[in-house]
């Protein structure tokens, strides 16, 4: 069952991810990304991270990506233009991608041989209670700092996007 779900959603995630990169239109990319995020949310659930899964959907899919789509719509962004160039990206882009992928996989295989297994229900520490507890004890300071960060981000976004006062 685990294998099935994992395979299914990993597959969806990968397809969507590739789609993000390959789609010409930003909206398509954005929707594909939503797909990736949804799939990942499911994978999170499989990994016992219920809260994060929900947060993933709410924050990422529900807010961040909506924002993206909003901006795409607002700017009426079309199919991307093929002007400009980056010879370095052209030259090294693909090799770097392959090398990075290969190396990462190699590292994963090397340091995490198949010892650990994920089985749904093995880990139940991802509920709201556990997260909340950790958040307000061990990670209180980062949490508060994050709130400041968000405040700054809000102000920054407002300042940036605000219309010039005449």
């Amino acid at each position: 069952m685990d294998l099935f779900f994992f395979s299914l959603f990993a597959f969806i995630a990968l397809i969507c991810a590739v789609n993000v990169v390959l789609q010409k239109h930003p909206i398509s990319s954005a929707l594909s990304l939503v797909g990736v995020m949804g799939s990942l949310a499911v994978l999170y659930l499989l990994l016992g991270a219920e809260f994060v899964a929900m947060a993933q959907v709410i924050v990422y899919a529900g807010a961040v990506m909506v924002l993206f789509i909003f901006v795409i719509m607002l700017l009426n962004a079309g199919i991307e233009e093929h002007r400009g160039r980056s010879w370095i990206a052209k030259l090294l882009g693909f090799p770097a991608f392959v090398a990075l992928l290969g190396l990462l996989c190699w590292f994963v295989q090397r340091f995490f041989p198949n010892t650990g297994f994920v089985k749904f229900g093995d880990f139940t520490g991802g509920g709201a209670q556990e997260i909340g507890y950790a958040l307000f004890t061990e990670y209180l300071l980062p949490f508060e700092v994050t709130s400041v960060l968000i405040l700054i981000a809000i102000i920054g976004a407002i300042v940036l996007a605000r219309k010039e006062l005449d």
Partner: protein
Amino acid sequence: MDPSQALEMLKNGVPTSWYLTLSALLFSIGVAGFMIRRNIITVFMCIELMLNAVNLSFIAFAHQHKQVSGHLFTFFVMVVAAAEAAVGLAIILTVFKNRSTLNIDEINTLKN
């Protein structure tokens, strides 16, 4: 490892490394997207993709070690990503307003 053994093994569940490999794949795809795409918004989305990939590995590690910290990291990453998206998109809006282009190759000077 012969197939029967592998099948036997898979009854225990999915190896954590598979999740990590998936994470690596997603991350690399994000990197590739960053390098390939020209639309600034798409590039931005590729960043989000990379962040998500990393989140996945955090969660996988959390499961592996049976610790909630990984979740929290993910949580923070999300928060930061949200903030980043807000500011980043606001910047994109401003840039577009000033230059009427979203092509990242044409946005290569700080001065306008």
